[in-house]
């Protein structure tokens, strides 16, 4: 039935499609030109995302509607207690913050930047061995920017990698391609923690044999690299193995944040969203420091 003309046209059509796809692939891996069209299309397909999240939403509504009153009362009591406890701690925190500010100004150190916290809902989780990322329901419209730090109520989750108009994707700290500058809370030792591809395991590869580190130590973000603000808990050291022939210790750690269990995450944004403010402040701090010497 198919004439030779039709056959050849089918092949040439296929050839054109392949060519277009390969060009698209090259352009998208080498440049950022396609970010705009991607954003437009992301808005167009957002109803599908809403549809996909419907079962979970309905489930959530049903569980809240069906849970017995005593349970809710207990949950309410617990939350109330927690609230007052946290409130009391915050009071203490405020005085500490002021004291810290004063001490910093005495030392001529740069002021600690205040972070604004925004709540975001989880839309999609895609965790396989090579790609650990989540999709959250905040985007350009809500002031999200690439490289923004994402935490939950326990610790650091990851950083924003792609921003679309209404949602953005977050790379988790356990992604095999992710590295995060940290500090051991007990000793102040600075190092870098790497993702492994397993949700409950992180790697701390470059520590000397004589480094002061032990199981149970808490790693906090060090603020180096400029992406993550310092002081947020990242992981606890789970194992320190000494191998005689190797130069470095084999250290594994466990993330503190509930990477695969939280429904909501928090976005940290600097008071000045653009990086120039930060750079200026750092430059100022450097200048004044040099002036002193």
């Amino acid at each position, binding site marked *: 039935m198919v004439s030779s003309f039709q056959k050849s046209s*089918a092949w040439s059509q296929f050839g054109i499609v392949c060519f*277009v796809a390969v060009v698209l692939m090259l352009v*998208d891996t080498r440049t950022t030109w396609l970010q705009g069209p991607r954003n437009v299309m992301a808005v167009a397909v957002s109803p599908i*995302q809403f549809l996909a*999240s419907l079962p979970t939403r309905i489930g959530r509504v049903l569980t809240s509607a069906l849970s017995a009153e005593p349970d809710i009362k207990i949950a309410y009591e617990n939350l109330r207690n927690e609230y007052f406890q946290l409130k009391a701690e915050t009071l203490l925190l405020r005085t500490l913050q002021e004291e810290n500010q004063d001490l910093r100004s005495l030392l001529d150190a740069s002021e600690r930047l205040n972070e604004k916290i925004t709540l975001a809902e989880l839309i999609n989780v895609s965790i396989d061995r090579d790609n650990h*990322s989540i999709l959250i329901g905040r985007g350009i419209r809500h002031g999200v920017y690439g490289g923004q730090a994402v935490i939950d109520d326990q610790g650091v989750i990851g950083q924003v990698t792609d921003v679309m108009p209404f949602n953005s994707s977050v790379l988790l700290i356990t992604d095999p391609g992710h590295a995060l500058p940290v500090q051991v809370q007990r000793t102040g030792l600075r190092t870098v923690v790497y993702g492994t591809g397993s949700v409950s395991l992180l790697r701390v590869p470059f520590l000397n044999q004589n480094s002061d580190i032990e199981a149970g130590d808490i790693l906090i973000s060090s603020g180096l690299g400029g992406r993550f603000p310092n002081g947020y808990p990242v992981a606890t050291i789970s194992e320190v193995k000494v191998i005689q022939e190797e130069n470095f210790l084999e250290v594994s750690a466990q993330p503190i944040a509930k990477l695969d269990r939280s429904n909501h995450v928090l976005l940290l944004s600097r008071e000045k969203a653009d990086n120039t403010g930060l750079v200026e402040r750092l430059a100022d701090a450097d200048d004044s420091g040099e002036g002193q010497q």
Partner: protein
Amino acid sequence: MMAQRKTSGFNLLWAIALSSIIALTLTIMPLPQWLFYLWPDWMALIIVYWSLTVPDRVGPWIGFFIGTVLEVLFVRNFGVQGLGMAMLAFAVNRMHQQLQVLSFGPQMLVVGLLIGVFKLVTGWLYGLTTDFTITTEYWYSLLGGMLCWPFVFILLQELRRTARIR
């Protein structure tokens, strides 16, 4: 018979859109851990069906378009899924006469093979463009896809009959 061959393209468009929306929704639905790797590549199944039953109108271009939509949803590199889907649609187009006469069993195997090639190609391309490597779990969805194929086929056949697409 030949006069009836081209029914309204409008119906076909709607049928493809409807099945695609359902498949895309299924694809990005949050899943429990045990089902995660077994979950079929719904979009690939849909593409196989349409390029099998309406080969003169559903081909590489529609595959390419659907693949691109998938890439927007998953926030991945443009072009990879598009190329894979286009190849899948083209391959099915080429062998639609042989495939149509097969019974469910062998058809399932051939569809599994085709989607396997599709996954291999996209896996390689992701390996080239990002730091992705193919693992054993990557192939589990093939099994799920093959098991779901007869149901997808029957449901879409029903849809095609209602929309009077020939």
